[in-house]
Every structure is written in C-alpha cells, then in structure tokens.
C-alpha cells in the first residue's frame, strides 16, 4: 500500500517550542486523525508538511514526493486550514476564476456543483461568509482540483454540530475513492472517533501514539476504583491516573487486568485527557 503522507524524523525548533522527531505515515485510502491539545504542535506539523515553515531536519513526503522540491505535487493536495485564506473582497465565482489558472486540474463544473451543493451564494463576498461557509468554500476549492489528499487543520472547530456533521459526511464521501486520503487535525476527538482509521496523538511537540484507531480504543479502558484496589493492577498497564476524593479513575490496558475489574470503554478524549493531565506514575508509553 502506498503512503499518502510520510514523515520521517521531522523536527522544527523554535526558541520556546520544539516539534521533536515526528515519524509516521498515512496509508492511501485512509483517514488520519491528528489529535493533541492546543499548542501541542499540530499546526506546526502541518505547516512543515506544506512547506510554509522551514523544517529544522527530517523528511516530508506527500503522495510520494517532497513538496519543498516538487511543487507540482500540490496539484493533488487540497487544503482546509483553521482560518479562511481567500481574499475577502472576492466572491466564490471570481475566486473560482482566479484558481482555475492556479491549478491545472481545475474542474469548473465540479466547482459549480459543489457551490450548489454546499449552498454557497456565488456572488456573495467572502468577507460576509460565516465560518461554516468559509470552511465549505475551502472544501469546494480543495475538491475541485482533483485532490487525492486532503489536509484539514482544525476545520471542524467553531462549527455548529450540523455543519460539522455535513463536513464529516463530505470527507466520508471523498474517502470512498481508493486513492483518496484525509489528514484531519482536530482537538474535537468525537469527530475523529467517527471517521478516522488512524490516530496520531501529539503532546508538547512529541508523538505519544500513532496507530489504528480501533486498536487504540479496543486496547484502552477506563477503570474506576479505590486507590487500594488499584494496587492490584500492574503499574505498567496503567497509562494515566486521575485521583479524586472518591477514589481513582485510570486509563488502563484493559486486557491485562485481573478479571474482577469492570472496565468502561475509553474514548479518544479520555485517552488524550489521561495522557496529558493524568498522574504519570506507573505510566508507560501508549
């Protein structure tokens, strides 16, 4: 299986922050959820991937090519960033005309049909768009130049549940084509739980976990018990721990626990929360 994205030992140093040795890959035809708290380095990773910032070291391949050296690969990469990036005085029609000269594979008819489908008024100025509309316009653009890889940075945050659901439906539809892939960065883990095949979890610039989402969710569980009861659990299977006055709740590797324990299903949010805020004692790498 070809990889849509390959990061090898990617590193970016700032005076106060380091994105450290990121290595993972996204197989073609899959959706990768890129999670982490605000400031974890998600946007920095995306910028380094797209060549918007100079990486300190490491290698980035998008659809098998280094985008820094082979700009042509960006013909097949669609972007939806956290903030809109289109000229505010333009409307969707004039934007489409300008972009038809930027992308060789621009499909005017597809663009018109996406505008219609997303209920974007073609002659309304972009500065008057809501955030949801701006996101849909970005998506319409990304889908109209026959992108094989979509990169979305916090595209769902700030959207109402209906708009978010619409967006996820569109991504799900996009991924039906075998060679299409999606890299979706978000701190709204519920969205990723719905559609992601793989999850990469970033914390303070370091990759905490990368792997299949179902495996991760299947492996982890939430154990609620007293501090005394927890002593019966081998510390290496406790991934994170929160203490409160009624006892403890712990993120655990559920298949390694004694049978008498009842474990609840963990969500991506739990995994993120316990990994970031949880007691590190006895914590092993995910």
């Amino acid at each position, binding site marked *: 299986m070809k990889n849509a994205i390959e990061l090898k030992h990617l590193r970016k140093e700032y005076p106060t922050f380091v994105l450290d040795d990121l290595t993972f890959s996204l197989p073609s035809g899959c959706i990768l959820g890129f999670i982490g708290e605000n400031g974890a380095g998600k946007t920095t990773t995306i*910028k380094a991937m*797209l*060549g*918007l*910032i*100079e990486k300190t070291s490491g290698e980035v391949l998008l659809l098998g090519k280094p*985008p820094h050296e082979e*700009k*042509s*690969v*960006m*013909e097949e*990469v669609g*972007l939806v*960033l956290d*903030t*809109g*990036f*289109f*000229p*505010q*005085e*333009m409307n969707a029609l*004039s*934007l489409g*005309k*300008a*972009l*038809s*000269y*930027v*992308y*060789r594979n621009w499909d005017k008819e597809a663009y018109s049909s996406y505008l219609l489908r997303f209920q974007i008024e073609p002659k309304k100025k972009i500065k008057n768009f809501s955030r949801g509309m701006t996101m849909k316009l970005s998506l319409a653009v990304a889908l109209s130049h026959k992108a094989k890889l979509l990169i979305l940075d916090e595209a769902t945050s700030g959207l109402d549940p209906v708009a978010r659901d619409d967006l996820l439906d569109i991504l799900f539809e996009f991924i039906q084509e075998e060679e299409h892939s999606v890299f979706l960065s978000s701190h709204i883990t519920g969205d990723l739980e719905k559609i992601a095949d793989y999850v990469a979890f970033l914390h303070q610039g370091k990759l905490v976990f990368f792997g299949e989402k179902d495996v991760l969710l299947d492996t982890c569980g939430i154990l609620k018990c007293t501090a005394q009861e927890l002593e019966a659990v081998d510390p290496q299977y406790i991934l994170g721990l929160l203490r409160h006055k009624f006892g403890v709740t712990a993120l655990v590797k559920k298949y390694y626990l004694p049978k008498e324990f009842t474990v609840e299903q963990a969500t991506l949010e739990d995994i993120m929360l316990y990994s970031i805020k949880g007691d590190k004692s006895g914590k092993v790498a995910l």
Partner: protein
Amino acid sequence: MYGLLYKDLHNTRKELFIGILMCLIFLVFGASVGSELSPSNLGPAYGVIVSIGAISATYSLHYDKACGWNKFICASPISRFKVIASKYLLGVASALFFTLLSVGVNLFSGGMLPVWAHLVFLGIILLLQSVMIPVTLKLGQNFMVVLFLLLIFIPIVLLFLLYRWNLLTDALIHGFFQWIKSQPVLFGITAGTVVLALYGASFFLSCRFYEKMEF
C-alpha cells in the same frame, strides 16, 4: 500567474477607484485655483498620481498577508518566485496606468508638460515601488507608509535647507534643467538604466525575502 494578477486586480479595484477619484478631485481643485491652468496648479494632482501609482502595488501584499492568502498560495503548485513576479508585474501595470493618467491630465489641461515629464513620472513611480515593495513584504504596510512619507519629506526638507543656505540657487536649478535639456539622450539612458537596475535588484531582494518567509 494570470490567476494571481486577476486576483490582485479584483482585490484592489476599490483602492484603484479611490485613487482615480482622488486624482480627479485634485485635478478639479487645481483647475479651480487661480485664473488659468498652469503646471504649478496641477502639481498636487500629479503628486497624487505618482503617489498612488507607487503605493497601489503594495496593497495586494498587505491584503495577502491580512487574509492568509500567503499560506494558501505557498502551499499550492505556484512557486514563490512566481508570486513575487506577479506583484512586480502588477507594479509595472500600475505605473503604466497612472503614467497614462498623467498624460490624460496633461491633455485635459492643454498639454503644458513636455513628453519627457511623463517618463520622469514613470521613473519615479518605479523607483518608489522598488523601495516600497520589499519594505512592505518584510516590515508590513504601516512601516511602508512611514517610509513613503519620509521618502517625500526628506528630499523636500533637504532641498529647502540647501536653498535657504544658498547652496542651491535659482541659477543652479535652471542650469541643471538646461543641462538635462541639452543632453536628453544621455540623461534618458542613464536614468532609465538606474531605474531598471534598481527595479531588478528590488525584485530579487523581494524574492529572497519571500523565499525565507514562514507563514
């Protein structure tokens, strides 16, 4: 490249319209002052034409930064070199447009200015752009506005002081213009070469700045 120019023209057309309107206001004002039209009456109108011709190319740089377009275009198949090339093409187009506007003003006022005066306007617009485009790119539109005012203010103060200290006399100024008139080809070629060289150097400097910029 065409797409970038189309976007810039579309995006800055309001400023272009305001610029033309300002030129017209100054033209009407110049025409209504005094009993007859003269180049000195129309001086402010020509000043506005040159100023707006020089500044208008920098608007698009400002808008690109403000709306996040730089992020998008630098992650597109278009190279950064082409992005900057489109800005300089826009600058040249703007310089030509406003020079033609000065020709229009001159014709309207009875053709008092010689043809070479319009070439001087073109040269000044390009010279100003060659400073302002890289400055806007590197330091932003606000700094550029301050610089632009200094570019106008400092020479005026300098000329005023030289004149006051009798280092610059009417005879000297007259002599300088006579020399230019007597050597039109030499002056034209020298000035043209200097402007083109500076414009070219400015382009490569801007490319270098833009290549290293992080978004």
